[in-house]
Structure formats: C-alpha cells, structure tokens
C-alpha cells in the first residue's frame, strides 16, 4: 500500500516530514472506548448522511468506521497488525498547504504556539490544553452535538519562531502528526507558513477508501482553517456575510444555496 500524496513534502524544500503517525488507530479497541465508538459512530452516520454536505459526508464516513470498530470490538486489520509491527504498510494520508500572513513571524508563531489558540481558527476543534511542556490534550465535538472525541498529542520538535512539529500519542483516537514551518515572506510581505498534516484514516481498508475519497475535502478544511488563522492574525476577526438580510431565507428556506454549493463542490460553510 502506498502513501497517498497530494503533494510531496520534498516539494517545499524541507525533507520528508519526520514524525509519522503512531498507528494507534490499528490498536485493539477497549470496552469503554468500544461503547463510545459505537454510539458516536451511529450518531455520526445519522447526522452525516442525513445532510448531503461535505462535513456531513465526512461525519458519515467516519461514523461508519467508528461504528464498525465499536460493534465488532476490534479493528478489521487487527490480526494483521498483531502478526508483526509491519509499520511500513501503514497507509497514511498527507495534506499540505501554505499561506502568507501579513504579520511579523514572531507574532504569527507565538499565536500558533499557544496551542489553546488553535480552536479559534480550527473549526473542528473544541479545545486544546497544554498538559505539560510537551503534551497537550485535544477535544473535538462530534457533529450533531452528541459527544466528543479527545486525544493526546506531543510536540516532537520545536524551533522558536521557525518550526513546530507534533504527533498524537499512542492509542490516540485521531491518529495524526504534523509540522508547521514559519518563514519570512520575501519583499516585506509578512510570514509564509507551510503546514503538513499526516493522518491515519480510521479502520484500515474502509479508512483507505475514505481517505482517497475525502483527502481533497480534508485539504480544503485545512485550507479554510489556515484562512481563518490568517484573517484572525491580520484583522482580528473572521468576516461573515450570510447572517444578514436576504429576501428568501424567511419565506422559502435556503434551497438555492445547496445548489450553488453542489455546483462548486464547496466543502464548507
């Protein structure tokens, strides 16, 4: 099985990203986690598939995977993993994105480094709290408001104002690793940030299909998160337009909007 590459990390002149995901989504699923998984999975499927939107689809797919895991008590590829580490065959998905922010590098870095700030622009996070110098605890709500997923991550490498990389710790429910680079943009244009995130889609075979299907959507999600980050840094807010007068929202519901979104394959909003 090959690594899915949207764009190779070498492309931005920085070597292959070092921290790999731990492979924790291939671990045995314990009984408490099992119940939570199945419940959350069902809820995700329900809320995800009911609404044909990209976040909905994502939720649906993740839900199916979680449900299967919870219901069966073990990951479909459990045996395979138990037979040996075989980490090379672990299928990771990678997304990369870069953006220029019209603010000094230290300011941009410091805001990001305070991990508690991340949920202000990462739409799918509820909270991040730093538990010790290296470790942090991440919480994300399950779409539909029926529960939460949480996991721990650790900082693997940190070069102040330049680089930050992390990975989720063993047994994390959301198995991922990532790296952010901060560079001065040429010509006094502020700071360039380069982000790479690698993740192990949940539950092996299903996961790989899911990853192929949804990697572009994850990429778009990352893009929108970074755009929110840029806007917060540059203007201190994230502008909105939809919460304002329109002549149809009241009387007829918001139907054309869905058509527009489908026409443009919009993953968000």
């Amino acid at each position: 099985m090959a690594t899915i590459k949207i764009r190779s990390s070498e492309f931005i002149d920085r070597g292959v990203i070092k921290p790999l995901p731990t492979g924790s989504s291939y671990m045995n699923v314990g009984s408490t986690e099992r119940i939570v998984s199945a419940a959350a999975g069902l809820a995700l499927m329900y809320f995800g598939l009911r609404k044909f939107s990209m976040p909905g689809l994502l939720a649906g797919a993740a839900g199916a995977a979680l449900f299967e895991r919870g219901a069966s008590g073990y990951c479909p590829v459990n045996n395979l993993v138990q037979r040996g580490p075989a980490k090379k065959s672990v299928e990771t998905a990678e997304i990369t994105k870069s953006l220029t922010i019209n603010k000094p590098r230290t300011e941009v870095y410091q805001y990001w480094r305070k991990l508690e700030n991340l949920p202000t622009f990462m739409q799918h996070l509820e909270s991040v709290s730093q538990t010790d110098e290296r470790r942090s605890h991440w919480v994300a709500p399950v779409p539909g408001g029926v529960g939460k997923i949480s996991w721990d991550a650790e900082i693997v490498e940190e070069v102040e104002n330049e680089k930050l990389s992390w990975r989720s710790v063993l047994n994390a429910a959301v198995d991922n690793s990532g790296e952010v680079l901060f560079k001065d943009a040429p010509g006094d244009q502020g700071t360039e940030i380069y982000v790479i995130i690698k993740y192990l889609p949940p539950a092996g075979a299903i996961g790989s299909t899911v990853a192929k299907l949804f990697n572009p959507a994850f990429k778009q999600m990352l893009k929108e998160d970074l755009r929110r980050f840029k806007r917060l840094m540059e203007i201190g807010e994230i502008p909105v337009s939809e919460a304002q007068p329109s002549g149809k929202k009241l009387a007829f519901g918001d139907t054309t909007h869905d058509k527009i979104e489908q026409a443009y394959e919009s993953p968000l909003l």
Partner: protein
Amino acid sequence: MKALCYNSVKDLRVENVPDPEIISPKDMIVRVTLSSVCGSDLHIINGFIPTVKAGDVLGHEFMGGVVETGRDVKKFVKGDRVVVASVIACGECHYCNQQSYSLCDNTNPNAYLPEKMFGDTLAGIYGYTHAFGGYAGSHAQYIRVPFADNGAFKVPEGLQDDSVIFCSDAFPTGYMAADMANIKPGSVVAVWGAGGVGQMAMQSAWLLGAERVIAIDREAYRLRVAKEKSKAETLNFTEVEVLEALKDLTGGRGPDCCIDAVGMESSGTGIGYAYDKAKQWARMENDRPLVLRDAIMACRKGGTVSIVGVYSGFADKIPMGAAMNKALTFKMGQMHGPKYIPRLLDHVQNGDVDPSFLVTHKMGLHQGQQGYDMFTLKEDNCMRVVFDPQKSLQHG
C-alpha cells in the same frame, strides 16, 4: 425593511427582509438615501455571473446616513452623511496596504468560490453574488457596512446627493480606467461604452491630461451626452467602421490609450457578434469580447489597453498576435474604490466634475424591475436609474 431582491433571471422583486444588524465591531449601519443601478448588475440579472441566489439583495453603488456604529468604528458617528465604496476592503492585508483594495485577501467569506473560478480570493462587493462574498446589497432601506472606516467616506458639506452617489462606483471605476491607461501629454484616449462608467472615464481622462477623447457607442443619446457633458468626439459603431474611423481620426496612428468600459455583454453588428451571442447563449462562452478585440486592433503600437468592463469567465478569439506584436500593455481590474474616492470628492467639491448628469431617473424600490428594464433597454434616454429606498415606504 424593504429590499429589491434577485428572484431569477430577469426577475426582481421587492421583499420584506430583516433589518441588518451590527455583526462585527468594525461594522456600521447606513440608512440608504440613494442606490444606483450599474452595468455590472445586468451581468448578474441576465444570468452571466453564477452564484447568485434567489433572495439576494442587489445594489452596490450607494450613499446614506449613519444610524449605528460598531464600537471599533473611529471615523464616523451617528448622523454622518457618507458615500461608500462598492468593494469591501479590510485595510490590513498586503493588497490593501498597496491600495489594491479590490484584491483584498480578507473580506470575502466565500473565498473558496473565486479560488475555484479565478485561482485566488477577491474582495467582497455589496450585492454582487456569493462568489464576491454574498454581502447584502444597497437596494434596501438599510445596509450593513463592514470595515466602515476603510470603505465609507464623509460627504463634504454643501454637495447634493446626486453629485456624490457615483463616487461610490462609476466615478472611481472610470477614474481608475483613465489612471491605468497611461495617459501622457499628447495622448489620444478612446473610450468604448458611453454609459455611466464610460462617461466618468472620459472626464477622468481630461483630468489626467488627455489631448483628445473619443467615445464609441451605439446609442445616439449617450453619444450626445458624451459630447455635451464629457467633451468627447463621438463615433457610432452602427454607422461607421470603428477601426477605420479611429485611424482616420488620429493621423493613421490609432489611439494611444484604449479603454473598455463595456465588458462581457458588448453588442455589435458583424458576424463576430452573431458567433459570440450564440456561444454565450449556449453558455459555451461567458463573455462576448467584441470591444476587447476592437480595442486591441485599434490601439496604437506600444499603446495601452485599459479594461474596466467586467469579464467573468472565458472569452474567445482574442487577437493575441496583434497585442503581442504591437507590444501593447494590458491593465485591468475591479476598481480600488477607497484609493480614489477622497480625491474624487475633492474634484466634485472643486467643480471639476459633476457626475449628477448621470441621474436620469429616480424611482422607489417598488419600481425596481421597471427601472432595470429601462436601463437594460436604454429606453427614455436612460443613463442611470437611481433608487430612493425610503420612497418605497409609502407603497408598503
């Protein structure tokens, strides 16, 4: 409140919509006193710019009185009379720092749409589809003005509304067209389109030192206005062969500066027009670039083609050979309103330009469809229909 909304292609309706509210501390609410139609609206109403949806409030060229300010608004207080740029700019991003306000990185909440269509995000524009931010437009009794300190400008004492409103859009667009056209002493400037934008381009060309200004259109009454108000020589393309006439008028050189103030819905006479019209009708081509083709062919060697007429997608049969081999310069863009508005208000105050002649019709919002029909069909010598949204109150 009442607002004039898009319902479907060529179908506008007045609807009751909720009053706008302050959402961000940088917002203010303006009670609209005048809101104008613009050629750009026609591209939306005629169905050539996607991502408009039923219920969207139209209109982007407006002025009014401040009724409420967010706590971070510094330049304005309740009661101020303001004119507002049609593009919404944050004032903080790299592009705003360069005064390229219509390229603002931050004001378009639907950035992914222009990213897909054009390869990058663009500034929000009031009432101008979801690709341009999905902001509610100004054909309404009230409007939310985001980033008010950057987009709104206080109207100097003593100026009439009619003289000021076009500082919102038509005047800065025409001025930018002339600014981009690289006008030097001795320059002959040709302007395609004698609508509000074209007229303002002609007058701005004089302000920037043009030697001669030539207007091209098909509407006799608009050419008459171009002659009388904008002091231009005129060519009616239904009567003369424009390319030949432009050479004949300029000692065989062609105009130094060619301004396209028509855009994607240009009309024409020959086979090229039929070809484009058919393709555009079948939605195989968004844009009918007749004027652009002519401007390139007419332009003097080494001259500049300045484009403010709007194009939204793909255009066919652009004579790149002529452009390349004649070493032409192309400049174009949506206008960078806030860059120009202060100096334009000065020009109006000094009496250099009085754009009020563009107001040929005043109506209430309830006459919205009628107003746009008239503007589209160029009936009754219509140059621009301007709505007074407060007037529609009486017609409940």
